[in-house]
């Protein structure tokens, strides 16, 4: 049965970015339906019962998150759209922002209405220059059509959206660092609690949602929670964008229901392994921060709970495929260098641990490893994990732990041979 794309339904259309094309294909009907037929509280309930879980990485229930806002409207409430997509191996939000910005914008307006926010912020990754321009254009178009501004569609609801471009730091995708950055400060994660729903942007109750999450809200507003919940698997509902990169024939963004097998995505959507003679060695299913799965454990369903059961996480669904030519030490070093560069430097374990990882790995890869180094990597990772201000600590500790544990013999071989065994 062919799957009819929902999130990517417009991206291949001529002029998909324009509001005319978007509206000609049913766009802004979800917003109309919500504003005319529903109450904001009912929309929150609708999203809750749809089972929508955040697409940014943690997979927390979106409706539940919204309901954490304190009652009362003494302080303004803010909605921040996290469009700082920076996780290595992840490029799904970018497709939505650049190819179908109104799908995201419509979901943003519906969500802002649902949580009774009148100023939303769209925090877009600094490197997304095209996306910044395109989304800015989309905001202008929507404003001209009365989907933004005062008294939207005669409902009495006012909303404006402020588009803000980050300066290119990975850490600003962490929601509290994003808030700091948005406030004009250095992007350092905040200590939680208090959570942003209570004390967020400028000290006000704030919801931070991922781009893809909000695109899904548009779908829920269009066709209802029950329909949405029928897609995917129990507790893992709805369509999902999967990024596939690495040693596959057709790397790219593919849409499929949550719970689609990883091997289906790899072999069917992405066209299988890049080289016929180089079999699958490992796959990181959820973006570089998640634990790696060796080939023999890649027969898993791509959803939040299945991957958690497999000892990893869906994360941002950035599937990174590695074939037999991959040196796992070099691969981990590559990641570690990224994390060392992107660590904000605020808290001790991450600031010092990330640099230590790269130095040990550089020695190992260069043939200068000591027999105790693999265990040292694991112990340093153990002391980083869980001890940092933000999840960045896990984001670097988990890959280190899983690469070393799953491919221990390769690390030991680097020590014994005093060289990379895969290097020619």
């Amino acid at each position, binding site marked *: 049965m062919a799957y009819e794309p929902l999130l990517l339904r417009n991206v291949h259309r001529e002029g998909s970015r324009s509001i005319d094309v978007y509206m000609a294909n049913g766009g802004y009907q979800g917003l109309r339906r919500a504003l005319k037929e529903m109450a904001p509280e009912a929309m929150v309930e609708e999203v809750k019962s749809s089972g929508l879980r955040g697409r940014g990485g943690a997979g927390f229930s979106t409706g539940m998150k919204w309901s954490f806002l304190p009652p009362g409207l003494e302080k303004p409430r803010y909605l921040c759209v996290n469009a700082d997509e920076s996780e290595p191996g992840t490029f799904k939000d970018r497709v939505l922002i650049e190819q179908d910005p109104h799908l995201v914008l419509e979901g943003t307006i519906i969500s802002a209405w649902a949580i009774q926010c009148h100023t939303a912020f769209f925090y877009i990754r600094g490197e997304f220059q095209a996306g910044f321009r395109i989304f800015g254009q989309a905001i202008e178009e929507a404003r001209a059509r009365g989907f933004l501004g005062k008294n939207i569609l005669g409902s009495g609801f006012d909303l404006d959206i402020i588009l803000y471009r980050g300066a290119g*730091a990975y850490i600003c995708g962490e929601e509290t660092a994003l808030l700091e950055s948005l406030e004009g400060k*250095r992007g350092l994660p905040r*200590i939680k609690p208090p959570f942003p729903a209570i004390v967020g942007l400028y000290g006000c109750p704030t919801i931070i949602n991922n781009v893809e999450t909000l695109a899904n809200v548009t779908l829920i507003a269009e066709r209802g929670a029950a329909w949405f919940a029928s897609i995917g698997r129990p507790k893992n509902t709805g369509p999902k964008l999967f990024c596939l990169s690495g040693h596959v024939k057709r790397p790219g963004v593919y849409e499929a229901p949550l719970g689609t097998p990883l091997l289906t995505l790899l072999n069917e959507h992405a066209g299988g392994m890049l080289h016929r003679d180089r079999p699958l060695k490992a796959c990181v299913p959820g973006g570089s921060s998640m634990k790696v799965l060796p080939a023999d454990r890649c027969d898993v369903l791509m959803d939040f709970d299945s991957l958690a059961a497999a000892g990893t996480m869906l994360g941002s669904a950035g599937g990174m495929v590695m074939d037999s030519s991959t040196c796992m030490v070099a691969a981990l070093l590559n990641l570690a260098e990224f994390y*060392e*560069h*992107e*660590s*904000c*430097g*605020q*808290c*001790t*374990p*991450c*600031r*010092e*641990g*990330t*640099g*230590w990882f790269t*130095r*040990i790995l550089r*020695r190992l890869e260069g043939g200068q490893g*000591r027999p*105790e180094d693999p265990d*040292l990597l694991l112990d*340093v990772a*153990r*002391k980083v994990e*869980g*001890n*940092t*201000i933000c999840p960045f600590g896990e984001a670097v500790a988990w890959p280190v732990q899983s690469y070393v544990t799953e491919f221990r013999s390769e690390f030991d071989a680097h020590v014994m041979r005093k060289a990379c065994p895969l290097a020619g």
Partner: protein
Amino acid sequence: MPDPNSPDEVALLIDGRPVVVRKGTMVLQAAEKLGIVVPHYCYHPGLSIAGNCRMCLVEIEKAPKLQIGCATPATQGMVVKTTTPRVQSTREGIMEFLLINHPLDCPICDQAGECRLQEYSASYGTGQSRFVEEKIHHEKRDPIGARVMFDGERCIKCTRCVRFCDEVSKTHELDLFERGGHAIIGAFPGRPLDNPYSGNTVDICPVGALTWTPFRFRARVWFLKDTPSVCAGCARGCNVNVAVYDGRIHRITPRFNGEVNSHWMCDFGRQIHEPLYARARLDRPLVNQAPASSTGGGAEGPARATVGEALDLAAGRLRAVTSRFGPDSLAAIVSARLTLEDLHLAKKVLAGVLGAARLVVPAHEQGQDDALLIRKDKTPNAKGAMLLGLGAPDPQGVAGLSGDILAGRLRGLVVVGEDPLGDGLMSEEALRALEALVVIDSWRSPTLEAAHAALPACGYGEYEGVFVSFAGRAQRARQAVRPRGLADPPWLILRELGRRFGLSEAYPSASAVFDEVVSQVPAFAGLSYRALGETGRPTTGA
């Protein structure tokens, strides 16, 4: 007493011991109440919470991860464990992380001996490192401010200094620059750390990253002996520790007093001991039977004398003036820099016994009061002088005396702790016209040159006494070092002068003088040196 049933209070268990604290108290503070040390670098009670060092991670029942004690509010029924193997192992890890890029240059580091890295390494570290690579290098001698030196390699990025400049001095010179392991504290371009409170960043730096430039390489801190005292740099009365090594004051640092200065003091106050060693001291009595008159004539110049000889000469001169011209012809200039005991005996001996008609207290003002600590009144005891009935410091008083001298109405003058000539308040002509000029002071000064008798007085830190702050708080300044040369406390010199005029009280000590003040001045009722303790007490009606 804390009440566990009050809605404002919560009861919790820390390492099996119950404690009741106010709602909002952090676990680290609650532990402190029990005397349980939760090690920490970035937490400071005078600053906002940063939670970045991660040294205070503790186990809290039902929380899957360790939680930072500094930012986790105590809740009702919470069970905290600070000594479990998991906590210990995490502390070892944090210590190891903090040291992998630290230069370990303790032998040449001024912080050695009062360094949290050293202390916690001994208490919570493993004593070894598994780090074998090259450390990250930074500038080791960065004059980040005029009085503060920054060593980027020793820094652990706790941001206490940044938060101090943002929250306390509100001068915002510092921030964290760069990222990750290369993160480094720095001053913004063109904004060096030159605020009047910059020294506090050095005090609160838990490691040797920020050092007080005037103290660098002066003394190993374990040789320093701290004496609790009070700053004499202005009318605030910041509580301080005066650190002495080898008979010399090397450092003055703030001592916590929530009623006066919290944890802080100004840079000016940190340097009030420096003149003791930089400026020419009057360290032995000088006499001059016939100072050269302003119209010229046989100048003999000052000559050395014993204290007794100088006092005899002073008494003789003063007695000659009062017996010939009456007590109205005698006046005194006394300083609000003097202790309460000095001022009391100045009043008692000079006005009471000798009968001097006027005691003038000059004002010493500079700049403006600021929002934090600094007062424009640069004397520590103007309030004390007022409470003793010497009146408020008078900017015009000395000028009035000059006029009377030149008009022949004033013939004798006793100057205690002031330099009216050097300060431009009185002309040399006026001083030379006096028939008796007696000076009691710590310094060699222009005024001294015209004196018939000059008696050396102790300087700051060389004797004890009470200062009354502008807010009316009586606090004890203590003796930290021996007096220079033949210097004596001014009150003692005045006592000896008084004896020559029939003063009968014994005044064996400064505290005896203070006790007399207490018995005579209602504002001090009920006080004593013991009662003042180390943090002072408010006077009444202040």
